[in-house]
């Protein structure tokens, strides 16, 4: 059952507008370290192909979102990806069938996450994190890169975080992409 509706889109637009302002920056070293922790864990699980464990980092009502243009409005414009939880599960299910030819053989990846900054997001239980990424991929004997920055909307869960939204901003999101079938 999908939870995506008008309110979901409205909240998403509000949450992802003007959030990276200097006066919202969170500088507490412990908080920054815990944000880095989930980002690094996420990158490692993806590099290791542990997609189910990776999915477990997401909240029940989550979004995996790759805009199709910088700042693209998902209600007005096709996205590269706009997965609610069910579709994200489907994405992994497809990769696991063994018949997703774009991922047979599966990409080997190495991710570098850097330039991590955290921002206040309305209440203490939620924060926004910006990070840069560089994914180096080997597939079919060719090495190539995917670069850009992520926006994570994180919710506190016990001592750690769950991912509410992962927005992946590829620098070439509005260009012709060759085989973007790996999990970004």
């Amino acid at each position, binding site marked *: 059952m999908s939870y995506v*509706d008008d309110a979901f889109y409205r909240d998403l637009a509000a949450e992802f507008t003007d959030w990276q302002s200097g006066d919202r920056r969170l500088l507490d070293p412990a908080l920054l370290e815990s944000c880095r922790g989930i980002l690094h864990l996420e990158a490692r699980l993806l590099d290791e192909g542990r997609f189910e464990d990776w999915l477990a980092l997401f909240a029940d009502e989550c979004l995996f979102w790759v805009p*199709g243009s910088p700042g693209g409005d998902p209600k007005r414009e*096709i996205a590269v*990806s706009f997965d609610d939880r*069910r579709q994200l599960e*489907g994405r992994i299910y497809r990769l696991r069938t063994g018949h997703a030819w774009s991922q047979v053989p599966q990409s080997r990846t190495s991710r570098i996450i850097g330039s991590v900054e955290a921002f206040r997001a309305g209440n203490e239980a939620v924060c926004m994190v910006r990070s840069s990424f560089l994914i180096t991929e080997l597939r*079919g004997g060719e090495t190539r890169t995917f670069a850009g920055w992520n926006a994570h909307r994180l919710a506190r869960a016990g001592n750690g975080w769950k991912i509410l939204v992962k927005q992946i901003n590829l620098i070439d999101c509005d260009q012709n*992409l060759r085989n973007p079938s790996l999990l970004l």
Partner: protein
Amino acid sequence: MNISISSRPLHDWDALVQADRAHRILYTDPAVFQEEMTKIFGAVWVYLGHESQIPKNDDFIATKLGLRPVILLRDSAGRLRALYNRCTHRGSTVCRAASGSAKAFQCPYHGWTFHNSGRLAGVPWPDGYACDFKDDKFNLAQVSRVESYRGFIFGTLNPEMPTLKEYLGEAARPLDDWIDRNPGGRITVCGANRLKYRGNWKLAYDNSCDGYHVVFSHRSLLEMENRLEKDPNKGMSYYKSKPDEAPMYCRCYGRGHHLKDKRPNVEKRAGALWEIEGAHPGKERYEAKLRERFGKEADRWLDLASSEPINLTIFPNLLILGNHIQVLEPVSVDETDTVWYGTAIVDGPDIPPGVAEDINALRLRTQEGFPTFGEVDDLTNFEEIQKGLAAQEDEWIYMHRGMDIPGRITTDERGIVTGPATDEVFMRLYIHHWKELMKSNPVLSVKRTP
């Protein structure tokens, strides 16, 4: 000004395109590709863009006619034009934005400026020139013939081409059906899934009407779509058992145009398309919202968020699939861009207020499904074909499915050919049309007088 093409044939085309097979070098020879960029992408009507991308006067998009950089625009007087994006001075592109609005284009290199009619507006310090800048040779070149069919804009450099309507011929009927299923017969382009592959453009064309590959190439998508269902008949599952015997069919209209019509697989009633639509984001919430307002009547609107089960292909580069406008853009002999433009429905007197917004919220998400979870596997298979074709001594690509089986393929009095959706008859017909074009010697011309 005419561009002449050497009349000496590059190859013995009859030897390379036979009744049941085509030679590998059609896909691998850079010289064949170069010749295609004039004899096909230039000499026939080539799709350039949709009117909804340039709705107002002065709107433009950057596009290509074959390899020629082109600015498709609606000029200040409202006329559709396709200007060569090439300064008449030293050859630089004059427009570097992907889209926008402009009454004039100024070359960033030396400042030559052109009205959006293509006419030269002026050059800096003209006293340094003895020539007459009113000479048309200084205006931007433009595609000599630009025509629109119900919003679909095409261009050709060939004065011998019939009108666009004539070129489309009977293929205009399924295009009409596709357009008219939307309220008021109106759609607007809303972004795109943009993909590329390392392979020849014809590999995508060969696939355009192919009902044979679906259960194999898209096996992971079919499994994904049906993983949640008690009734495993979502999406394209009508391909699964014996697709040869399904009521869907393939129809070839001549000039390389063809249709794979899957509509007969789906019951002809409101709501039937929506019932087989997969589990896309927003599905239940928007359906509930529309049902609350319209009850059973919501079916006819929800069908508009569902994928229309046709693949209509207009030679050489326009593919209408589901709700997409897919465009093939050849880059080189072994590189192709394939752009899946999304389409949205438009508010108007034929649709209750607010419905278009709700339907489009669904329709955007349903359209992301196939390029993301289906096309990527096809493109991988195209890349693997291109790799396989490096084997020089293994020369042939076979396209003989359905051939020589009595009664399987029929031709009506208009010359329209119909066969099972799993046959390769469409490939044989289009590649023979391709062969005739490659044998021809069209004289292409650009226009300089706006």
